[in-house]
């Protein structure tokens, strides 16, 4: 069967025009122009099904979880726990209790630093990260190191934006107690060879966390296959609501870790003399969680599973290659981040024009990109730029979106000539 017009220019069977119709927000105009949304690494838009589930949850099922005997509470509890099982399957965790609900990637990393980190990192020890981390995978470790007298080590990257694996390995020393590395860089789009990195750490019996915020929307993630000890991601970058995210942790580690926050649900019994803590995952979920958020996340994952992660990845890789080719062809554009393996984001600078000005001019064309340091200031310093412009792709983007971006950049150049 010949492809229908909508399928031309994307991977076969991936009907991006039909998919776009699922996203109400994409139908609008910005400054009189059709919205071209390329700020997906910051947050993705939500399909109608996710929005509808949130409404239905509040209209029909809303109650607190794990505490009522009444039907609504049972229903809410069941949906909440069903999401945990869906996430478990989605990332191929061994058990559902290895899935902890948090606010997002930031809270997931802070949780690990505040529990596992405090317990295992002491004076004179090292924590190893890389030069391409998001601030949320730098600052929690910096705080921990400051508190416990440990040292934060940073593995360097190449000019292309790839991790220097040889240097990384050298930095894994006898005092390294923890490694935390991003799966995909939010600024450079670099996909790190995380399986290899996990193996290097494990050969020395060092536990490792992977920051999956920018990987989970683009790449099939299998935490057992990767064998990482922790994996963190945010729902809102995965077509789900804000305020919900996931920390995956291996059960045997979670069991030994102290609790994160104190409160309801994380205990099994409380007296004024002594409190016994609940088991994972509840030990790490004090207080009423973002129940609606989990319901929305559940629907978002269903949406992705219906399209198929491999089809999404193929479509996005096609777009990324197209965007890279078109951008590189513009005189005056320099790409920041040219790793062999990339996904999602593409950063660039323009001769004679500050990224902030690019952003303003593109916005007038209805094109939403991100400009600035992208919460990776050390990375900006590494490349000697104050900021970059970043276009970040999602499953609903099209070649037309890239064409609009290119036309917009030419307009910027025209204006600043």
């Amino acid at each position: 069967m010949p492809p229908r017009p909508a399928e031309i220019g994307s991977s076969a069977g991936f009907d991006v025009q039909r998919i776009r119709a699922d996203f109400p927000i994409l139908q609008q105009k910005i400054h009189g122009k059709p919205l071209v949304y390329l700020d997906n690494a910051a947050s993705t838009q939500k399909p109608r099904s996710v929005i509808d589930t949130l409404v239905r949850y509040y209209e029909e099922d809303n109650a607190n979880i794990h505490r009522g005997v009444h039907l609504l509470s049972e229903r809410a509890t069941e949906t909440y726990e069903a999401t945990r099982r869906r996430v478990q399957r989605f990332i191929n965790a061994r058990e559902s209790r290895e899935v902890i609900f948090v606010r997002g990637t930031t809270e997931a990393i802070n949780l690990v630093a505040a529990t596992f980190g405090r317990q295992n990192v002491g004076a004179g020890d090292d924590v190893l990260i890389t030069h391409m981390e998001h601030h949320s995978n730098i600052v929690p470790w910096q705080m921990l190191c400051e508190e416990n007298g440990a040292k934060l080590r940073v593995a360097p990257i190449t000019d292309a934006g790839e991790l220097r694996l040889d240097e990384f390995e050298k930095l894994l020393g006898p005092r390294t107690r923890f490694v935390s590395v991003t799966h995909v860089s939010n600024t450079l789009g670099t996909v790190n060879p995380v399986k290899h990195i996990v193996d290097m750490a494990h050969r020395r019996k060092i536990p490792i966390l992977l920051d999956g915020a920018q990987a989970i929307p683009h790449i099939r993630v299998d935490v057992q296959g990767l064998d990482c000890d922790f994996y963190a991601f945010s729902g809102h970058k995965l077509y789900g609501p804000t305020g919900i995210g996931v920390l995956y942790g291996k059960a045997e580690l979670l069991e030994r870790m102290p609790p994160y926050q104190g409160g309801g649900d994380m205990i099994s019994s409380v007296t004024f003399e002594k409190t016994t803590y609940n088991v994972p995952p509840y030990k790490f979920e004090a207080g009423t969680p973002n129940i609606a958020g989990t319901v929305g996340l559940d629907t978002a994952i269903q949406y992705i599973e219906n399209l198929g992660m491999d089809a999404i990845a193929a479509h996005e890789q096609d777009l990324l290659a197209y965007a890279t080719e078109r951008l590189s062809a513009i005189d005056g554009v320099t790409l920041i981040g040219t790793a062999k393996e990339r996904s999602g984001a593409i950063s660039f600078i323009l001769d004679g024009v500050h990224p902030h000005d690019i952003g303003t001019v593109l916005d007038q064309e209805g094109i939403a990109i991100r400009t600035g340091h992208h919460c990776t200031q050390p990375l900006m310093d590494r490349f000697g730029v104050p900021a970059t412009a970043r276009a970040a792709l999602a499953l609903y983007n099209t070649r037309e979106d890239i064409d609009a971006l290119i036309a917009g950049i030419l307009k910027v150049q025209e204006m600043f000539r």
Partner: protein
Amino acid sequence: MSDLRELYQETILGHYKKPRNFGKLPPPSRHREGYNPLCGDKVTVYMHVKDDVVTDIRFEGSGCAISTASASMMTEALKGKTVAEAEEIFKRFHELVTGKEAGDNDNLGKLAVFAGVREFPARVKCATLAWHTFHAALEGGEQPVSTE
């Protein structure tokens, strides 16, 4: 596009490409660093103040067209002014870019080209960064100034 042309006036682009009074001033100068953490723009303002008059003023830094042009034109506008006059110009400039000014900005002279900024609230901090830094340099102190 018309709003954009209002924002990126020729004068502004001119100052962006060729900033005036760019560089350090030799000590003893007052200087202060300003920073916009949102976009990474940095500016350092240097000045000599003698008998309550801004006798010389320069700036250094890297930033967008709006913040660079604003710093450049600020140095031109403030050189030779008394401290009180300079502060008054800052106040009126601030009102101009935030859209609070009462209509009459004649006495702002060339700085009136920044009126277009008011249509771009996200850019107000770019336009005022150097000015806040100047103000802080006058007051003295060491801490870098942040727009956040």
